[in-house]
């Protein structure tokens, strides 16, 4: 790995920013603040991706997470949040005993994970193929050779996206197709879940007994004609 110079400085800045923004995500009282802190945590992690040479994943992270998923989160917060928590009436955490038990669990988890990371890393250091400093420099020089000229010829462009795309379509094309089916199922499922009773009635997709009950409560529903194509 071995970042050095400015890379090391940026590593610490973005790493600490990711951790603190993550903590504030969990601790913020207002859900909108939580979402904004989560966005800053995700952007910091994207910067760490750039530092470790995964420019494509960093771009995808910002486009998909920050541009797509977080906008969806903010939209649902606007739709659902009744604003009780920022007025300070409701407790944002579970009851005292649950919080204590889960914090004890989390501290045990911190200890266990850090211990195992340390042990595992010691094992990696002891391996014969652990990259030495010369090895890393040689590998970096080999990588620098593969950089393409930019359009103006004044700078170099990484080929990270190209190699990732090659591997994705060559060795992981079946999982790639399965992922697209998964996304299709997710789209259909979320549309099905978020429909109102009125929309279900207009598609003639309600249990007749349930519809009768609801019409007794709200006579307007009876006027809806199922529009079947």
């Amino acid at each position, binding site marked *: 790995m071995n*970042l050095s110079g400015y890379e090391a400085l940026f590593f610490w800045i973005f790493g600490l920013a990711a951790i603190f923004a993550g903590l504030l995500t969990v601790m913020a009282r207002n859900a909108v603040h*939580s979402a904004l802190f989560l966005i800053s945590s995700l952007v910091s992690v994207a910067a760490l991706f750039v530092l470790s040479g995964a420019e494509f994943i960093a771009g995808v992270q910002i486009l998909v997470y920050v541009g797509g998923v977080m906008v969806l989160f903010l939209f649902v*917060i606007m739709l659902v949040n009744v604003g009780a928590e920022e007025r300070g009436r*409701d407790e944002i955490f579970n009851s005292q005993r649950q919080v204590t038990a889960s*914090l004890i669990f989390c501290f045990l988890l911190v200890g266990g994970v850090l211990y195992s990371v340390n042990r595992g890393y010691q094992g990696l250091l002891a391996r014969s193929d652990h990259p030495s400093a010369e090895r890393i420099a040689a590998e970096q020089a080999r990588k620098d050779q593969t950089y393409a000229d930019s359009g103006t010829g004044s700078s170099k462009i990484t080929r990270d996206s190209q190699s990732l795309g090659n591997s994705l379509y060559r060795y992981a094309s079946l999982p790639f197709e399965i992922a697209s089916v998964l996304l299709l199922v997710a789209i259909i499922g979320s549309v*099905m879940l978020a429909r109102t009773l009125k929309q279900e009635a207009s598609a003639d997709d309600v249990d007749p007994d349930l519809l009768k009950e609801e019409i007794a409560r709200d006579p307007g529903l009876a006027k809806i004609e199922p529009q079947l194509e």
Partner: protein
Amino acid sequence: MLNFFSPTLALLFQEAERSRLGEMFYQTRAAAANPDLSKFLVIGALLFIIGVAGVLTRRNIIVIFMSIELILNAANLNFIAFSRYLSQTGNPNAVAGQIFAVFVIVVAAAEAAIGLGIVIALYRNKETIWVDEIDLLKW
């Protein structure tokens, strides 16, 4: 960057260099100036545990979903760090870590869409987003 300050630091710690504390300081400084795989793993582990704490302690179901995103993102950080490490050992399949990260992002997007659909449906029926008030399965 730290090399820029090192003459000043060397003057400051010239005495301390001979002591054990000074030795420790120099070792820590050398480790901090060259973050390696283990530092990425530690940051990933801390993000993961912050996410677990959020899932276990918060009452707001939307914040619980955000904590799950934090957990998935920590896993991605580990994948990318190991991918970089493997590429430095000269492994030709090192890019596999980045492919895994792409799939994790896909699953996270699908999970967020479905989860938020469930939240909307739940809010329509129960008028609450507090997880301790959603107790239909409890008796």
